[in-house]
């Protein structure tokens, strides 16, 4: 495998940049599209399968500037149109090209609150980078301007240079906002409501904050210290955090309003109810939901064998069912935990896989094997009730279904046996029922997702919701976008209340 080391990439960029700096502002588009796309430095695959350290190492200053110079500063900004939170992409990229990193950071922060996270986990190839003019000109999405990597570069630069500023907080309004869940949706609401001067309490069921960012997405993709930093900033702003607090159980949601005096509640409890295939053998020992497997490894730190009290199942041959980010994370984690063979079994083809492209590429480099157009039929156990194999079926692509993707159709009599001792089911999540079970006043759809209006308000006054609990399992950036919208509505509602109270006094 030709793995370029970060030193090589850094050196190449250092030499290359000299040529472009002199003509930074007067290159023709054609010339810009010929600037070589910068490869992301990464840990050597052979090494990284033995550690949890981050795989992608981040651009050097020179790499970032060269990559930024590839941007054409289009008048019709398709990248911005395709960004869920409408970051002014060409503007921040132009600052990077000119080495004005602080300005670049300011531009991103006008629209996004968690750039270090989004830069790492957003599916850019189906968002901002999908219709980038450079990618189009070069007829390859992979050659689009690497917007995500540049976003990450800026966020990391800010952190490394200690330039992260604590956002200004307006004077106390005396209003109280309860945020349920500390995933990206909740964290964003906390930040936006705190800035307006409201008292904000975040309630989290787990002992650690961050939601899926902490318990689901592994360290090798999103290091914990990045989440810690975001939470530190929120604490410094005066946001209060209550961990080990399950709203609905430790305290009823309505009690937060009726007894504890909260003026608004935001529900950001995430998807978090794992789906299974409902096939024979799914409860055998050695079958896990991806949520369980990853929570043990990440949140409970089972990766650190010897130190952690939480055990993780010892596996040699692992089958992962699914084709999304969760499947990639599970497969790569299993490899790092010592599995010799890891197979991703997906019933469509690579093109339909919803996982980020970069993760699929990284998984392949790490020796994960992909079995496309196949799916589990049943899981077979031994006399001790443990997994010994999985029976699979082959599929072919048929007519397109409602989503426009060609529907996989089973090929009859195509059964075959895959010898595995562990099966990780990563076919998606349904919505967490805790809140709807204990607060029936809140309307949900048939999948249990909370129904909201265009301001994210639920069927109950003062209660808002957003993120995966509304969208079904979605993305960090969409959760963040919903959080911002909800916070704006909460802030508006509370401001109106304050003004009404003032008017009544006069």
């Amino acid at each position, binding site marked *: 495998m030709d793995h370029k080391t970060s030193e090589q990439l850094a050196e190449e960029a250092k030499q290359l940049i000299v040529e472009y700096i002199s003509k930074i502002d007067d290159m023709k588009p054609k010339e810009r599209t010929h600037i070589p796309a910068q490869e992301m430095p990464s840990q050597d695959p052979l090494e990284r399968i033995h550690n949890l350290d981050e795989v992608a190492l981040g651009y050097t200053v020179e790499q970032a500037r060269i990559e930024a110079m590839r941007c054409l500063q289009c008048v019709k900004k398709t990248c911005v149109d395709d960004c869920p939170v409408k970051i002014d992409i060409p503007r921040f990229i132009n600052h990077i090209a000119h080495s004005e990193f602080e300005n670049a950071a300011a531009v991103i922060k006008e629209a996004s609150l968690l750039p270090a996270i989004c830069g790492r986990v957003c599916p850019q190839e189906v968002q901002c980078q999908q219709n980038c003019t450079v990618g189009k000109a070069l007829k390859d999405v992979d050659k689009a301007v690497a917007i995500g990597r540049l976003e990450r570069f800026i966020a990391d630069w800010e952190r490394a240079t200690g330039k992260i500023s604590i956002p200004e907080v307006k004077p106390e309004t005396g209003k109280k906002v309860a945020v349920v869940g500390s995933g990206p949706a909740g964290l964003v609401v906390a930040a936006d409501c705190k800035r307006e001067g409201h008292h904000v309490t975040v309630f989290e069921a787990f002992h650690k904050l961050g939601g899926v960012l902490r318990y689901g997405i592994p360290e090798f993709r999103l290091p914990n210290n990045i989440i810690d930093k975001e939470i530190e900033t929120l604490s410094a702003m005066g946001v209060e955090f209550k961990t080990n607090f399950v709203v609905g159980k430790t305290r009823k949601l309505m009690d937060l309003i009726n007894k504890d005096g909260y003026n608004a509640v935001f529900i950001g409890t995430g998807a978090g109810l794992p789906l299974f295939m409902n096939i024979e053998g799914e*409860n055998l020992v050695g079958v896990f939901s991806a949520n369980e497997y990853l929570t*043990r490894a990440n949140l409970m730190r089972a990766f650190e064998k010897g130190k*952690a*009290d939480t055990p993780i*199942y010892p596996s040699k041959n692992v089958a992962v069912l699914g084709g999304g980010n969760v499947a990639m994370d599970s497969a790569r984690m299993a490899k790092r935990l010592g599995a010799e063979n890891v197979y991703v079994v997906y019933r469509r083809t690579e093109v339909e896989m919803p996982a980020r492209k970069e993760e699929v590429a990284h998984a392949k480099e790490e020796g994960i094997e992909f079995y496309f157009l196949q799916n589990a039929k049943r899981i077979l156990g031994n006399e001790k009730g443990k997994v010994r194999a999985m029976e699979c079926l082959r599929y072919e692509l048929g007519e397109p279904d409602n989503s426009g993707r060609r529907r996989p159709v089973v090929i009859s009599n195509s059964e075959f046996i895959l010898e595995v001792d562990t099966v990780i089911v990563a076919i998606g999540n349904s919505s*967490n029922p805790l809140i709807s079970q204990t607060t029936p006043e809140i309307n949900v759809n048939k999948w249990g997702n909370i129904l909201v209006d265009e301001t994210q308000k639920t069927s109950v006054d003062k209660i808002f919701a957003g993120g995966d609990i509304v969208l079904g399992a979605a993305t960090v950036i969409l959760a963040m976008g919903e959080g911002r919208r909800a916070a704006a509505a909460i802030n508006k509602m509370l401001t109106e209340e304050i003004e009404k109270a003032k008017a009544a006094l006069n």
Partner: protein
Amino acid sequence: MSKILFKKQLSKDVYLMKLHAPLIAEERSAGQFIILQVDDDYGERIPLTIADANVDEGSVTIIFQVVGKSTHKLSLLNEGDNVPTLVGPLGKPTHIENFGTVVCVGGGIGVAPLHPIAQALKKAGNHVITIIGARTKELIILEDEMKSIADEFILCTDDGSYGRKALVTEPLKEICERNPKPNMVIAIGPPIMMKFCSETTRPYGVFTQVSLNTIMVDGTGMCGGCRVNVGNEVKFVCVDGPEFDGHKVDFDNMMARLNSYKEIEKELHTCYLESLIQSKESK
């Protein structure tokens, strides 16, 4: 974080602790459980049924048996120490009403979660028959508490060292044969005991409720680690339970799943015990 207000050793490996948790004390009902961790970073999540609660004191009582590394670490904590993670009350409360005659069967440490349920059933006007059992005399807990609630009280040990020499299923069978037969049985204890209680009552068609203690991680329905087959359905014990119809539970699968980590845990526990011995020796 929760302070340990009170600690008492009930038998060789069994401890009672009262933890400061005012919100949980206020919200909990019989049948619910908590999850705790002895260490915030590397600790394991241990689900334990709430044995009692005191709203005025803001306390919940847990009773646990030392079975591995994590419960051993918990047993080393003392009054005044803090348990860093305590969350609850989790699970659905027991459905309490006046059913008529209810047999409460508790095995070993299972008597602890049974006690508040028996208490609530008594209060609701039921005729409560209690059977408690253990391997041997030392392992009997809460005898007086259970006796004081019961309209009829039967105690047995496997080895005959105390009370009647029998498995709890023997008196249970006799009671099922009575006319009229009991309206309901609640059995809490080791899985094997709950399985055989369910088998005992099945021919008599007496509804038998069991409380399952599966492996858990989050306790909020997020991981599915606690899943069991109940009838033809897969249920999550932490949110759909912990109580289920014993005649429908697939106990064999549940027991196999409980043993998922047995080999590694044995290894870990041995290493842990060795390290304890070493550190003692070096002192």
